């Protein structure tokens, strides 16, 4: 096919049209900033409760520490959310659920690992039955503490927002189709080997 003809939108090549529209909207019109801004104020966490950090997660959205003022609204279904808070220990069975939940979420998606157990085992260090969340999903922000207070969770959300704004994570996903600052983690061993639907 003639290159010149392909380069013009009115030839009817939908890929070229899509690329041009993307360049116009994200490059010239700086729509990427708007998308990043929108993503920072619309971080809806999915509620993956694995252990006692869930109580602190609930307290973060309770009347005293109201995290909804940052636009974060806890949501149940992973399909409509864009970030996930891993609330505590991830056992080997829960790793499969975590990976499935992560795969169900649409891009751009972010992960916060909450609590000492999610960092490096915490109370369950040297246990036979835990995995680290970074072996299963790419983690953006860690919250230390056992369990972390609600202020720390709100602080982590603000940190995640700053990270999205500075590194332009949401709009770069639109441009590049993948996040290059975090390598896509493929679990070393199949976390869902014990369960086959």
């Amino acid at each position, binding site marked *: 096919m003639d290159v010149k003809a392909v380069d013009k939108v009115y030839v009817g090549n939908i890929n070229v049209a899509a690329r041009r529209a993307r360049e116009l909207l994200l490059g010239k019109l700086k729509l990427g900033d*708007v*998308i990043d*801004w*929108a*993503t*920072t*104020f*619309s971080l809806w966490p999915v509620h993956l409760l694995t252990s006692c950090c869930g109580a602190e997660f609930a307290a973060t959205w*309770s*009347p005293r520490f*109201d995290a*909804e*003022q*940052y*636009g974060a*609204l806890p949501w*149940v*279904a992973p*399909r*409509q959310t*864009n970030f996930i808070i891993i609330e505590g220990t991830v056992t080997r069975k829960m790793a499969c659920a975590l990976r499935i939940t992560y795969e*169900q979420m*649409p*891009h*751009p998606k972010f992960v916060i690992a909450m609590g000492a157990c999610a960092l490096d085992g915490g109370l369950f260090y040297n246990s036979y039955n835990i995995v680290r969340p970074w072996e299963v999903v790419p983690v953006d922000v860690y919250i230390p503490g056992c369990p972390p207070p609600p202020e720390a969770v709100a602080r982590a959300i603000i940190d995640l927002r700053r990270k999205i704004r500075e590194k332009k994570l*949401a709009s770069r996903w*639109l441009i590049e189709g993948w996040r290059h600052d975090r390598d896509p983690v493929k679990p070393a061993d199949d976390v869902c080997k014990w369960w086959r639907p």
Partner: protein
Amino acid sequence: MVLETILYLIAYPPLWQVLILGFVGALLVAMVAIWFERKAAARVQRRIGPYWASPRLGGFMIIVADMIRYVTQQVIIPTTVDKIAFLLTPVAVLVVTILPLAFIPLSPHELYWPVASMEYSLLIALALTTLPPLLTVVLGWASSNKFSVIGSLRESYVITAYELVAVLAILAPAASTLSFNIVYIVEAQQPVKWLAILNPLAFLAAFLAVLMSTSAFPFEIPESEHEVVAGPYTEYSGILYALNMGGGYIRRFIYAIIIALVFLGGWAPYTPGLDPFTGFIIPSLIVLVKASIVVLVMSFLRAVYGRYRLDQALDAAWRLALPLALLGLGWSIILAYMNLI
């Protein structure tokens, strides 16, 4: 001359009807309803609610941010779905939802609103408002997910019970004014003989049925979070989910417009003039403000009431709401017989 041309262009009925009112207005009202819902629930629970995106607007920009995020998010199409139905149904839901607006006159003059002199406009509008739930059943089935199927089954149960009540209760004004023409019904209520005051039973039944059949938030039985994940919309992500969610709010808004017209007097204390400004813009704005108040009251109920189970809702439909609607219909006939309206 120039001003007249511009005014005519602005007030050109199809433009106002479909573009400005249909899409922009309905979208705006849906966003305000969502914002008010979140904010009111937060204030009732002594929280702040959406705030930091735009403190002066009370966090309204957070809803805009949600919308932009949904539009630019990835759209996941699972491999097991029926692709054509899965992709086309949300669009069809939105189109069919907006369709009744074409038959709801917001101005008494045929010049500005071509269907104003049409008989049976109330019947046609009501018939069209009952279409979108069928498409909800279709999209639940197309998702090929058990939560979707259960959710759409619940939707079909609820609409079977409550659409009947809604139609009966909203047809009560037609019985008392002896006409299906919305403009005639509105003019009969001039100036303050509002049917919500004269016939509170039918108004209550209509309000309750609209609340239930559009699955407004305290009664969101089809998409209850705790039982079926997101109901019929479980598999939808990104812009398709935004279309579905917006469709629900727009449907509630259209019901609210009908209620504002036939029960709350439409543009009633105001007598429309003949030129575009006094004859068209002011009456339609009055109707929209009344409808918005109805929608906001519905949104506020989220923070106050708990959710009914499916069996309780159906029980309330057949044992409470249907007799209420029939009583309202009887009351309307008595009103018409005694020439009270």
